């Protein structure tokens, strides 16, 4: 059993040294594609030997290169589009020299019919195979495999996102992607947001159901990334950790909430004295000794505290 905290970082944060001393970070194409000199940026980084080398990030920090998101406009379906073909995005990802490349994926909407969902999932599967084949063709991956199904050699790990409309669908997707991807992403943020009629606790129960089904189907042989898992509800964390403990699984948490709270809101994770069971984000002006913290200090402190909470929860949760 192992946990890693993966933070969503932007260019400014990477320049400011946020990426030093953390488990890993997620760098999305959003952060540079919207700028005018995107081409120069990509070329510069490529010639310097990748993002990690360009910004002096230690080699043990895991760098996940995110994929493009389909643009959403007012009319949801008609104008929803990829901004570019998947293989061009992959070529660009290779230039950034990351440890993990996220495969482009289509999210599922509430309004989608049964047939449409099937088609979207088929396209997702197709893209995973396309990514894998391209990497094999260019010599970044070997075509021979271990008995566990993963290729023997690969310069990059692939992160395939398992979408679905019910727990078994997620499990089916995971079963397919297992042969191509080292890391399987479960889009938790979507699950938590979509079922708006349920209470928060019930939503997390649903997440647990999905994770259980996925782990039942594929075993604990792959890393599972909880995508968009904001770690916003720390009280519900024990449910997820109980699953990890039961299956001896490796989870990577994506914690965008933490970056948001640290850099923009300058909030720090702390215990409420009146109610010691409650750990929440509080503004630094209200925390003794943290008044003069810079955003980077706040981020490092929050990262440390959250890792502490994770390791403490493991001790007290029964799997």
């Amino acid at each position, binding site marked *: 059993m192992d946990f890693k905290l993966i933070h969503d970082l932007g260019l400014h944060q990477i320049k400011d040294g946020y990426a030093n001393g953390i488990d890993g970070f997620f760098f999305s194409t959003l952060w540079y594609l919207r700028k005018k000199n995107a081409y120069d940026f990509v070329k510069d980084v490529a010639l310097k*030997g990748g993002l990690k080398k360009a910004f002096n990030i230690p080699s043990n920090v895991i760098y996940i290169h995110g994929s493009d998101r389909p643009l959403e406009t007012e009319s949801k379906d008609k104008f929803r589009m990829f901004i570019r073909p998947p293989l061009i995005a992959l070529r660009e990802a290779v230039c950034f020299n990351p*440890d993990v490349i996220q495969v482009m994926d289509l999210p599922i909407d509430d309004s989608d019919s049964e047939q449409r969902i099937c088609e979207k999932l088929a396209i997702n599967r197709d893209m995973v195979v396309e990514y894998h084949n391209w990497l094999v063709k260019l010599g970044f991956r070997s075509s021979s495999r271990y008995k566990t199904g993963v290729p023997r050699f690969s310069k990059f790990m692939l992160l395939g996102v398992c979408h679905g409309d019910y727990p078994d669908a997620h499990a089916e997707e995971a079963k397919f992607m297992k042969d191509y991807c080292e890391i399987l992403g479960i889009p938790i943020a979507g699950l938590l947001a979509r079922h708006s009629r349920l209470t928060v606790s019930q939503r997390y129960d649903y997440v647990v159901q999905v994770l259980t089904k996925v782990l039942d189907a594929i075993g604990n042989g792959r890393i599972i990334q909880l995508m968009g898992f904001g770690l916003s509800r720390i009280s519900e964390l024990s449910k997820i950790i109980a699953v990890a403990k039961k299956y001896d699984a490796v989870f990577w948490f994506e914690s965008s909430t933490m970056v948001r709270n640290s850099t923009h809101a300058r909030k720090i994770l702390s215990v409420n004295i009146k109610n010691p069971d409650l750990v929440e984000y509080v503004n630094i002006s209200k925390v003794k000794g943290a008044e003069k913290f810079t955003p980077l200090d706040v981020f490092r402190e929050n990262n440390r505290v959250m890792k502490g909470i994770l390791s403490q929860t493991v001790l007290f949760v029964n799997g």
Partner: protein
Amino acid sequence: MGEREIEPREILRRTRVEVAPYMRELARHSRAILPRLEIAKRWIEYYEALGKVRPLTRAEQRKLEEHRKTQRILESRLEVLRAAGRYARTKSPKDLADLRLAQSRYYESRAETVAPPKRREFIEKFVPPREFYDELAAIREEIEEKCKRYKAIKYRTTPEAMIMSPDERERALKEIGKDLSLKYARAYELGQKGMSISELIEHYREMKELGARGF
């Protein structure tokens, strides 16, 4: 009494003596990594010690660099083999991630052996063409502008939109809508497979009707 100064010739002799047993081992097992690593380490030590006595010649510097490269490759290869062995025993995802990181390092150290101009050429080949980014940026700006105007007319936020008659308004909205769809279409065409989601789904339906495999 101070330490006796060692002559360069003496250092060379010592290094040769130290390297000899590893050379014998290598003669028996030519692919063994550890003796090769030891040899590279001893030669690096030799050149570094020599550098303290007198400045290295160009040929000596080149040799030192070569030994350093060899050492890096061998170390990363050893790391890959160890990580692969560990993963084969445990089959745990944590070890799989470690194996991949080791393989990535090995790949990078191998890539360093390629001459810099050739490497640069290779990398530049991978970066998608500049025109692609430029056109994408231009289209995005145009789309954003059009969307702003569309919203302004629809919700009557500007004075110009407020005095428009209903007919005029409808016509303007239609025009912008048409322009927008053309822009989006151009954006799809940019790449070979840059299709919208609805187009992709249409494509899948057609393939399915034609009885394509895997559906």
